[in-house]
């Protein structure tokens, strides 16, 4: 598109997608992101990373559960949720699928991803010895790898398409940028890494993977920062920057930036290494204190801040045009 300094014209009214949709975007992002991270750990991590991988698959399933409910409750006619899949037009009834409408694509992606998340959830239960389900054996070899990879691709889609859905409209801000899908995906990934960090305390065996999660979170935060900048630049070009970043939305953006701070700070100070990863080293007096303090700080407060930022970012994007 040719650069134009004229402000993009928008005379639309807002669709009143509010709280249900905000939390749907949030949870779907965490579900997709957790599946992706779990798959990365399972396929590219070492043996010791298996517990965190299973944790990721649990999260992917549980975070996805409320999603269909949220979407249904948001409808003006909740009992007609199935019209998304089945076109009931008299004389023209049939499956409803429009590849050019992200909402239509998303519904199907959600259903298929739901199946993958469920399979991964059951598989994790079996591997953890919580469930006996012999068929899961099938997933031990190459088939399991294929399933995990397809599921991860769907997870990436679920985490990102919501941004494209907003963009495929004529709304100010939303339709003025190509960066929203990527932005939501990047923030889903950083949020998922943070959520898994937060949950590590409930799964001792997974603690060994904490450093890798911390480093992933840093890189995802950097990616998210880049996308926020691209998002802002596209809005500046369209002349709608002030709508998305003006008061009071600026406050939400500040929260979103605060959520990036731990990752960016970690990257700036220690790049890809994690401080305090040699607890075995003889400790001098101060580092004992640090060791006691660090866990709560790095394993609870900072991940919670990241998650809050992920939510705030979506809230700023959704609410600023309403």
């Amino acid at each position, binding site marked *: 598109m040719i650069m134009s300094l004229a402000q993009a014209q928008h005379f639309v009214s807002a669709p009143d997608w509010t709280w249900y949709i905000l939390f749907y975007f949030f949870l779907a992002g965490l579900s997709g992101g957790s599946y992706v991270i779990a798959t990365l750990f399972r396929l590219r991590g070492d043996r010791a990373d298996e517990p965190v991988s299973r944790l990721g698959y649990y999260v992917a399933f549980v975070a996805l559960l409320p999603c269909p409910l949220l979407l249904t409750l948001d409808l003006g006619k909740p009992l007609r949720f199935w019209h998304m899949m089945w076109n009931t037009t008299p004389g023209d009834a049939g499956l409803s699928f429009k590849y050019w409408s992200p909402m239509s694509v998303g519904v199907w992606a959600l259903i298929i991803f739901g199946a993958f998340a469920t399979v991964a959830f059951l598989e994790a239960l079996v591997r953890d010895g919580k469930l006996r389900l012999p068929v899961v054996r099938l997933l031990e070899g190459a088939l399991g790898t294929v399933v995990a990879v397809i599921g991860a691709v769907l997870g*990436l889609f679920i985490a990102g398409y919501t941004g494209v859905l907003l963009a495929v*409209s*004529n709304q100010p801000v939303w339709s003025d940028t190509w960066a929203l899908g990527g932005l939501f995906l990047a923030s889903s990934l950083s949020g998922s890494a943070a959520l898994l960090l937060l949950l590590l305390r409930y799964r001792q065996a997974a603690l060994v993977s904490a450093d890798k999660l911390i480093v992933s979170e840093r890189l*995802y935060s950097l990616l998210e920062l880049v996308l926020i900048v691209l998002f802002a630049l596209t809005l500046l070009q369209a002349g709608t920057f002030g709508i998305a970043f003006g008061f009071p939305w600026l406050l939400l953006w500040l929260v979103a930036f605060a959520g990036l701070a731990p990752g960016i700070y970690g990257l700036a100070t220690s790049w890809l290494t994690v401080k305090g990863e040699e607890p075995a080293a003889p400790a001098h007096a101060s580092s004992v204190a640090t060791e006691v303090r660090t866990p709560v700080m790095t394993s609870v407060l900072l991940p919670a801040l990241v998650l809050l930022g992920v939510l705030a970012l979506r809230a700023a994007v959704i609410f600023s045009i309403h």
Partner: protein
Amino acid sequence: MAAITPGRAYGFFTDTSVCIGCKACEVACKEWNELPGHEPAFGDGYDNTGSLDAQNWRRVQFIDNVPDETMSAGQGKAWLMMSDVCKHCKEASCMEVCPTGAIIRTEFDSVFIQPDVCNGCRNCIAACPYDVITQDEDKGVAQKCTLCYDRLQGDMEPACAKACPTESIQFGPVDELREAARQRVTDLHDQGVTEARLYGEDSDIYGGLNAFFLLMDEPEAYRLPNKENAKLPRRNNLGGYLGTLGTAVLGVLGGLIALRRRREPVAASQAEPEAGE
């Protein structure tokens, strides 16, 4: 007028140069379609309808251009009035995004929301560039002008066109209306009314609007996007998905880097300086 025949494209030519702002169209529309009223919207001008929405399928816009200090009469430019309505776009943004297939093109080439198919997802509201649709609070579905679908089936013209006392709203086959509109704009130009222009009568705007207008000012003045800005929602599919794809690749790469780093704690410390990019 000749019988209204299915298979032919029908629409409105709304000539704003003769609109007197009487709102007969709004009233006739509400009566015929049994649309409830709502709280009046009080703004600056004489418009208390506020906007097109689920209950208001015609809305007379009053555009106040009265200068603060008047030296001469308004010459018809001090107040612009325009009876706004769904444009029944040939390439309709609302129809494009609707995931349920509720929005169809009828045998009269109008854009119609089937109330029994719509599930109230409101995607069409996000898409329509003309602020035409909203959701009916009670029925839970999206509503807008139907081009009086039921009246057309009964060989009657839409209620608004029937009621309009100045023929600002003309109903008929789109090809005939276009011809009449071009003639009208030529006549006005000949009379020295050079600001008269047509909006949506050719394919420049959404492939052509079946309900198009003669305007007395820039389209933007009437809250109509100009040619450069009249774009379909799907224009953002490609860029949006490509942006997501690029992010996905970088994200997976970042994840792999985070995992690999731990395998050789010292060796690769300088290896990936461009990590997140």
